[in-house]
């Protein structure tokens, strides 16, 4: 139904810090006012909890990765739209082994600490595939991201898969090697702003306000606006240099045109197919799923993969196009 | 007319027969003392009179009508222990009964009404010799003082029947003698009907106008609970010779250990 106040959830991650700045700088309010709505931007500590809340209906939109968008809201029957494709991980996620000059193949037989069923898990699976191994060759130990750094120094942890800023902390420890990272599977781990499709359909204003605010900040970041970047660095618990290092490992789409191009590319459906196959193999699509196509996905140009009667995840570049055309 | 009358009263807990075929009639103003071996059912009988327990067979009448099936202000009680409220001081303990009657919802009174109740309570406490301990908590009182308090608390409701379950069992001999005087003077002044359980036969003889001995008429050594107790002696006091006392003493002693 149409309404005029909305709640958006976000959690701390290099590519999502602009949302914090949008809130604290008043840019979000400016754009919301422009469309006569109000948008409440809420920071949630626990990433998974924020998605769960969104899925349960507590928020109208939420930041998440492409894989989580598929396995949590979409698999849960909540029709969701990727409104903004913000960036993809280009080294922000990685596999670290203890010891100097290790290769990914050395991971065989080890216990690997990671957040199970997260993009880390996906990254690992892709890495193993590329080096001719499979998950059977290792043991996955589900480890809370908060404790990843702390536990990496204990002797019974030999390898970990994680993301920034934790990744850089771990990789900086003496006698470790980063053996694989997301720059080797570019464009597969994508960070999105996802909103409820029905809400978006009834309230195009929401899409316009969010996209407008986002790309105003992207513009600032592209120029290297120190105020904005410093604020984001602080909010993510690091300093400007640290934050820039994280951004270096993130392929941000600073211009809407880039984002539109990525979203409309033929690669995206293929990537998503890999993701849904991984999700299906790990039971993430629910116990009732017959195959990886259980949850249908819509891409630009009426390209639909999977079950056409059950399309729950939509990659929609309409609003980003408006930004590209400066029609907001 | 009889205040209390029991006709062929039985009380059983499952297979355990506690009281067996008890019949009796008590007139207003009698002071009945009850003795019997431990566990023979004296307290159970008192609970029947209170309405806390109901008889399994037979009738128990108060003024010729079936006895109310729960305790009320007609029948006051003093137990051996736990009869007073530890969280109220002496005065509050005695005022409680009147306050409950005066204030159905809060059970508390204020102002003039409270002062009236207070005066009445103080008078009662003075008459039992607690006039100087009004603001003490029960735990600060000696055993004897606690029992006086329990008596005062029960008497302020002017019950028609007063039930005493070994009220002096936990007291030192010297204090006991004082309490005997107190209870006798209360009885004489108010004309109450009193039932008093005691372990001390001499006490029973000394205080009562009538003494009951509860005992089993029949014994089955294989199944001690098969038969219940009843009133085996009903002695109008003042008319007893020493032989009876001796016989009873023997029967009590024989059951020990």
């Amino acid at each position, binding site marked *: 139904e149409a309404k005029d106040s909305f709640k958006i959830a976000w959690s701390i991650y290099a590519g999502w810090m602009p949302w914090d700045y949008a809130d604290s700088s008043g840019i979000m309010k400016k754009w919301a006012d422009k469309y006569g709505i109000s948008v409440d931007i809420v920071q949630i500590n626990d990433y*998974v909890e924020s998605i*769960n809340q969104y*899925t*349960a209906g507590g928020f109208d939109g939420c930041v998440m990765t492409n894989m989580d968008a598929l*396995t*949590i809201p979409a*698999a*849960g*029957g*909540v029709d969701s739209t990727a409104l903004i494709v913000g960036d993809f991980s280009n080294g922000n996620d990685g596999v670290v082994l203890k010891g100097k000059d290790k290769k990914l193949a050395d991971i065989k037989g080890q*216990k690997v*600490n990671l957040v*199970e*069923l*997260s993009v880390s898990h996906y990254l690992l699976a892709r890495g193993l595939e590329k080096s001719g191994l499979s*998950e059977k060759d290792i*043991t*996955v*130990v*589900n*480890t*809370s991201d*908060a*404790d990843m750094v*702390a*536990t990496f*120094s*204990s*002797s*019974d*942890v030999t390898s970990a898969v994680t993301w920034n800023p934790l990744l850089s902390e771990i990789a900086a420890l003496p006698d470790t090697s980063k053996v694989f990272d997301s720059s080797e599977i570019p464009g597969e781990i994508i960070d999105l702003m996802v909103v409820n499709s029905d809400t978006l359909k009834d309230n195009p204003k929401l899409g316009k306000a969010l996209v407008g605010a986002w790309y105003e900040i992207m513009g600032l970041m592209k120029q290297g606006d120190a105020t904005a970047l410093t604020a984001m660095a602080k909010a993510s618990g690091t300093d400007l240099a640290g934050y820039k290092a994280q951004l270096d490992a993130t392929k941000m789409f600073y211009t809407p045109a880039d984002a539109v191009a990525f979203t409309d590319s033929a690669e995206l459906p293929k990537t998503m197919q890999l993701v849904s196959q991984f999700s299906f*193999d*790990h*039971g*993430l699509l*629910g*116990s*009732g799923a017959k195959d990886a196509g259980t949850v249908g996905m819509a891409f630009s140009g009426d390209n639909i993969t999977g079950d056409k009667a*059950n399309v*729950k995840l939509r990659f929609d570049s309409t609003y980003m196009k408006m930004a590209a055309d400066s029609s907001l | 007319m009889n205040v209390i009358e029991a006709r062929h009263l039985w009380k059983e807990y499952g297979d355990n027969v506690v009281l067996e075929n008890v019949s009796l009639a008590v007139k207003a103003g009698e002071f009945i003392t009850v003795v019997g071996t431990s566990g023979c059912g004296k307290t159970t009988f008192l609970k029947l009179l209170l309405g806390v327990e109901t008889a399994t067979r037979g009738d128990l009448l108060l003024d010729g009508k079936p006895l109310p*099936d*729960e305790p009320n202000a007609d029948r006051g009680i003093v137990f051996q222990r736990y009869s007073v409220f530890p969280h109220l001081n002496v005065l509050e303990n005695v005022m409680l009964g009147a306050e409950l009657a005066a204030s159905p919802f809060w059970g508390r009174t204020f102002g003039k009404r409270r002062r009236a109740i207070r005066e009445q309570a103080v008078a009662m406490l003075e008459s039992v010799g607690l006039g100087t301990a009004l603001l003490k908590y029960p735990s600060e009182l000696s055993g004897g003082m606690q029992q006086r308090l329990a008596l005062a608390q029960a008497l302020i409701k002017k019950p028609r029947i007063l039930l005493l379950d070994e009220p002096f069992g936990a007291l030192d001999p010297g204090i006991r003698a004082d309490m005997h005087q107190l209870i006798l003077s209360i009885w004489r002044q108010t004309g109450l009907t009193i039932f008093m359980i005691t372990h001390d036969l001499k006490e029973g003889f000394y205080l009562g106008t009538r003494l009951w001995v509860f005992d089993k008429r029949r014994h089955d050594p294989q199944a001690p609970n098969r038969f219940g107790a009843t009133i085996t002696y009903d002695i109008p006091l003042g008319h007893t010779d020493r032989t009876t006392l001796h016989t009873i003493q023997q029967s009590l002693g024989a059951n020990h250990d």
Partner: protein
Amino acid sequence: MKRLINQRPSRAAQVLLGILPFALLLLAYLWASELRLAANPNDKLLPAFSSIGEAIWSMAFEADKRSGNYLLWVDTLASLQRLGLGVLLSALMGLVIGVANGAVPLFRAGLSPLVMALSLIPPMAILPVLFIVFGLGEVSKVALITIGIAPFLIRDMQQRVLELPEEQLIKAQTLGASSWQLILRVILPQVLPRLLDAVRLSLGSAWLFLIAAEAIAATEGLGYRIFLVRRYLSMDVILPYVLWITLLAFLTDYLLRVLTRRSFPWYYNGGKP
């Protein structure tokens, strides 16, 4: 009409009354679930009983595709092992340190303030420290349980020893008992049933710590599974797991109670001081 406090329901009425709130809860769930599923058939929040049944079946009786394990049983076994070890260790510490503290004034003076201070630290707050010290293996989970409940058990045992009537200790000495003999033959056997009571009391916390530890790092276990499937909001797995844990908690409590009753007949005959 009797006073409300004097009205006692019959046995049958008692059973009925006891079942009633459970039945109501169940109905409320069914109703809410139906409502949500009507709006969104894929809703995961309040799954229908049929999906819960399926999930139970697949967790308990179908081998997992990836690992080939029957997950429910693997999880249960792992969790119970950790719980058992942690509780056993804590009970031992409670017995040894608690009795020593209670019986020997010199020990008590030295250790009792430390134990008191330790018992006040919320174990959850030092979880990170634990993982660093004990690693991510089984040890750290058992350690969390132990750190969580041992101070309570120690203090409780100390208290119980101090509650033993002084008369008994004097009597034992007049029978010629040395300190050691007194502890071994008078104090220890008398606090054993009380230890079991205390263990029963602390089982609730033990479960908490177990789940908290499993949530942070594990490869199997009941808490691990709940926090793992939370990732994709699988309430059809979470709900039966919660019920299963509740049942296990009830059973362990029940078994301990029966064990105490069987092993210490004197304790239940009014042998409490």
